[in-house]
């Protein structure tokens, strides 16, 4: 099972270590540093590294490497999933997960890690239970603690761990009972030079914020559940009812949680809401290149596309660019060769464009690679797959909750090749 955890910052300092069994020497991380040196970028460090006596599994999040050390055959996904849970917990506790924040809250961090694993076996990984055991730090509590001398360790015992619904704490009380659901879809797509779709798929999630008194039992049904190709549920969802009736039936955890994530695959036709017209040309003899990009809406079902940003890694041969956008702002970093253009909203009457010239290294041959354009955008009130929630019902409690549902479509890994 999981032996130890090291947190390493991007400059290669181990700033936190935690051992759940015997102590593993820090020197084991040398193998990790070697791999880190070999990889040109932090993202490229291989997630599984073998050393003579241990295996190192790492994830890179928020500019921190979370390196778990294992000694025996443990499923790597088990370890990586656990590390993700650690990251999520930190974020949940401290708002952000960064080196200074972890250093500031080192006591809470150790307490939380101690509760998450017992001898390498996961113990309490649900944020509901953890928060009962160890209260997250707030400014008010810090002040109170300094005065009264108490700490963040809860004086309550984790009663939830004994119940049949370990994800929900007991005795929840709210004056306003409300349940909000966000259907968020991300489009991953690769569009080729000519504008046709090479591959497109939708990753969707339903995130929920449920603040309901007592032990409510909810059911949520869709207008068109057949759309979903593959679903993964929060443990609270009763799988049988989904199998037989395509209804989500569950006792929700308290607070924020991810109810469902789903996948609409490339087999189904995925609507692409934007198009990018581009004309990037280098000429062999001249040291100037032409650059022109226009973005426009495609299948948006009448909704506005907002928060559009384009970024592109230009070839090394490009020295500088002089461009004029019709709207928004753009930057080009001559060192990293990263061009980014913050467009904002797309007005279908007046399509935003970015035009100008690129100055290339004089005398050099034209660059071999074509830049790929990365696109970000958001569309409110639209689930691009067409998924719609039919209704939400509550059983088991008397009061009438306030219900809300929101849809949003975002670009995931949306790439346009040129």
């Amino acid at each position, binding site marked *: *099972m999981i032996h130890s955890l090291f947190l390493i910052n991007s400059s290669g300092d181990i700033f936190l270590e935690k051992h759940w069994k*015997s102590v593993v020497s820090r020197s084991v991380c040398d193998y990790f540093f070697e791999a880190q040196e070999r*990889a040109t970028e932090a993202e*490229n460090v*291989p*997630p*599984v590294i*073998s050393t003579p006596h241990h295996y190192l599994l*790492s*994830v890179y999040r928020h500019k921190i490497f979370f390196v778990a050390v294992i*000694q*025996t*055959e443990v*499923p*790597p*996904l088990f370890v*990586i*999933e656990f590390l*993700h849970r650690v990251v999520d917990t930190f974020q949940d506790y401290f708002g952000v997960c960064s080196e200074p924040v972890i250093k500031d809250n*080192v*006591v809470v961090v*150790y307490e939380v890690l101690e509760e998450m694993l*017992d*001898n390498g*076996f996961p113990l309490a*990984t649900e944020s509901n239970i953890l928060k009962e055991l160890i209260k997250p730090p707030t400014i008010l509590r810090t002040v109170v603690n300094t005065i009264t001398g*108490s*700490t963040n*360790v809860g004086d309550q*015992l984790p009663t939830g761990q*004994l119940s049949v619904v*370990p994800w929900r704490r007991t005795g929840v009380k709210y004056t306003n009972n409300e349940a909000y659901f966000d259907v968020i879809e991300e489009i*991953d797509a*690769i569009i*080729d030079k000519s504008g046709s779709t*090479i*591959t497109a*798929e939708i990753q969707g999630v339903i995130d929920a914020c449920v603040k309901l008194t007592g032990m409510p039992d909810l059911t949520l049904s869709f207008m068109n559940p057949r759309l979903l190709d*593959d*679903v*993964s*549920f929060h*443990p609270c969802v009763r*799988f049988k009812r*989904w*199998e037989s009736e395509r209804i989500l039936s569950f006792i929700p955890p308290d607070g924020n949680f*991810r109810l469902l*994530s789903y*996948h609409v*695959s*490339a*087999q189904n036709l995925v609507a692409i809401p934007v198009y990018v017209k581009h004309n990037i040309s280098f000429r062999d003899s001249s040291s100037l290149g032409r650059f022109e990009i226009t973005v426009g809406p495609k299948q948006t079902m009448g909704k506005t596309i907002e928060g559009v940003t384009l970024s592109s*890694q230009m070839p090394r041969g490009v020295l500088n660019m002089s461009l004029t956008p019709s709207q928004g702002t753009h930057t080009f970093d001559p060192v990293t060769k990263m061009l980014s253009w913050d467009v904002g909203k797309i007005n279908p009457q007046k399509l935003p464009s970015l035009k100008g010239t690129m100055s290339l290294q004089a005398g050099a041959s034209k660059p*071999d*690679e*074509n830049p*790929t354009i*990365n696109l970000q955008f958001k569309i409110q009130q639209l689930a691009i797959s067409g998924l719609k929630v039919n209704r939400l019902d509550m059983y088991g409690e008397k009061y009438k909750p306030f219900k809300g549902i929101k849809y949003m479509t975002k670009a995931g*890994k949306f*790439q346009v090749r040129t």
Partner: protein
Amino acid sequence: MTVGKDVSALFPDVVNCMQTDNLELKKLVYLYLMNYAKSQPDMAIMAVNTFVKDCEDPNPLIRALAVRTMGCIRVDKITEYLCEPLRKCLKDEDPYVRKTAAVCVAKLHDINAQLVEDQGFLDTLKDLISDSNPMVVANAVAALSEIAESHPSSNLLDLNPQSINKLLTALNECTEWGQIFILDCLANYTPKDDREAQSICERVTPRLSHANSAVVLSAVKVLMKFMEMLSKDLDYYGTLLKKLAPPLVTLLSAEPELQYVALRNINLIVQKRPEILKHEMKVFFVKYNDPIYVKLEKLDIMIRLASQANIAQVLAELKEYATEVDVDFVRKAVRAIGRCAIKVEQSAERCVSTLLDLIQTKVNYVVQEAIVVIKDIFRKYPNKYESVIATLCENLDSLDEPEARAAMIWIVGEYAERIDNADELLESFLEGFHDESTQVQLQLLTAIVKLFLKKPTETQELVQQVLSLATQDSDNPDLRDRGYIYWRLLSTDPVAAKEVVLAEKPLISEETDLIEPTLLDELICYIGTLASVYHKPPSAFVEGGRGVVHKSLPPRTASSESTESPETAPAGAPPGEQLDVIPTQGDLLGDLLNLDLGPPVSGPPLATSSVQMGAVDLLGSGLDSLMGDEPEGIGTPNFVSPPAAAAVPANLGAPMGSGLSDLFDLTSGVGTLSGSYVAPKAVWLPAMKAKGLEISGTFTRQVGSISMDLQLTNKALQVMTDFAIQFNRNSFGLAPAAPLQVHAPLSPNQTVEISLPLNTVGSVMKMEPLNNLQVAVKNNIDVFYFSTLYPLHILFVEDGKMDRQMFLATWKDIPNENEAQFQIRDCPLNAEAVSSRLQSSNIFTVAKRNVEGQDMLYQSLKLTNGIWVLAELRIQPGNPSFMLSLKCRAPEVSQHVYQAYETILKN
């Protein structure tokens, strides 16, 4: 928490605070104890009382906390006191305490394994598998799995249909981590028939929809394994196949680290059951900001999934990738295009034109990589795409990597007759001969010889030049050897040389890096583990000498079929008759006088390797015939015979046909004259499965020592070094007695013969079949696995002759059920010849008797592990079929002893 300060001095004071009701304080004290108990073991005893008391606290959470903390104190003295409270907690009424206690057993086992076994905690833990609470079941399974890992032989997780049912019930209700433990445990179970397999699959399938990817992958493992048992025509089989694809695709949209592990596993799944993901090619298309390790894996799977149906799409993608920035990735993409050409014949033309387009980009590394793969395409489709050679030649100057240069030289040599200026091209390479890498030098030598054989008139000078460079000015033995061989070949028999050098080459295999099927089957059982990430069985890399139980896919059994014992001895004489056959003591005594057996004869030591060829004059006038019309070329000044000191080594490599090979064949004949029978070498590991390394071999037994005679042939294009060999545990503990000694690097096309001494002191594990030997051979390229069956007679020891009294007593002593009868057909030998032939293989005739015109030979032999086998061989003069009865306390060896008899007598 103490900011690095050592506060162990406060130990007594802190322990005093332990008996508090304040939970927070208690927790802090516990934390303190965990950290400092080790430094103050004597003081730690003081804490025991409180722990024992806390273990009886009315609050279950306190009880659990106490038992959890106690397990974390790694002090031997404390663990003894832990036993009683732990026992109580394992039977606690509250499931939370039981589940904590279950993990505590694993902790304790880590500290003191013997104690855990003595105290019977393992049995209690096993009982917890049938606990009513799913969380307890999950933790018990987790604890048992961890303990089992350090005790591979112990049968801790003994699963039966009842416990499986319990686990399946618990599976639905426990936490995600518990589900992983249970699924991994289920994967070790072998259902008794297809119906049971199907019902387990049905109950595991819902786990594919779990949010935790580790749960999903563990479920995939169970399904992949049990699917093996389902019949393909079953409707359910098809449904299951369809259900497997979406979760695997979803894993690919997760974080890059998860993707990487998933991809490594998908790589295995695609090789085992390509049908699952055959329609999902698009999800493996690479995004430009994927981390490099994900990109490379995706590319690998794309090639595996490439088929006629999707090749156009794949090629378009690959071409796109070839213009990316990352050099490694671009190279692999170019290589992938070549592999597509080789895999999908219909696409070859398109692939070649794509490669040509890429060559036109003039990007240095793209051109080089393209040339390397085009060479492979030429090997697969000879004489089809020569039109591109002109384009390739244009880029000759830009090649600076050895592999690309070697590939280009190969192409020029191979198609020398169609390239007008082939001699000029090769000559230009020859100028810097000494600066080239060995790979290029060897290739250049071969190419020029090829050129010479095709156009002897113009290139004679060139070939002389290269031969002298290779033989006289080079320090590389491989190069020298190859130079000499060509030299001799050319001078002795140019016609033969032509046949040898320009022989038709075997086609290269379609997929070069498929995992060996048996290994693949094993790895399928390890989906989701580190083994699947490394594509190696755990035995190859798990720490220390810890053995690992080999897993294998279950065989397909239909529920209706009854199990049949695989070894049913052929029906022989009825039992009554057998009694007559056993000689009475009196008879035996008389017969013994007739025995004409000498003491065991051991063969003379084997004279192998150093066969001196001496000054055999291989350089004849053969060259004249080839260059007849060029009088001044007959090489008096240049074609002097190579320095006499360089006698031809015995292990001349290079695939040679015709007359020359006979000359060198002397070695192989010598060894077989004495000692046990030696089977001819068989190919154990074909080159296509081992990236060009071909291994053939046999086993010998000489004067009490066993050895494995290996012949390693390098059929790849790169030099092989760093050989090492390792055996898996086997039935008789065979293990190499010395490391594999390959003194010089093995150059392409070179062969080396090695005799590897073996001993029988390795670890023992019963194999199926009994004489199965799994071997791993490593070289600088990779690790390869193969398995072979060794003949049992190499294990017959020299002192296997039993005293006749003893023989008689033992024969009677061994129960009749252990007797197996076999028939040896078509053996024309008489009793004397049989007896002496068997004796040279250490099967000793104890007594001989003639009953009713039949010769009865009573024989004994002993195996290296001390097992005696007694045999009775009935020979009827004039009848070439012998009857063999074998008696042994370990009846499973009989079958193999019979096979040994067969082999010895028939060869």
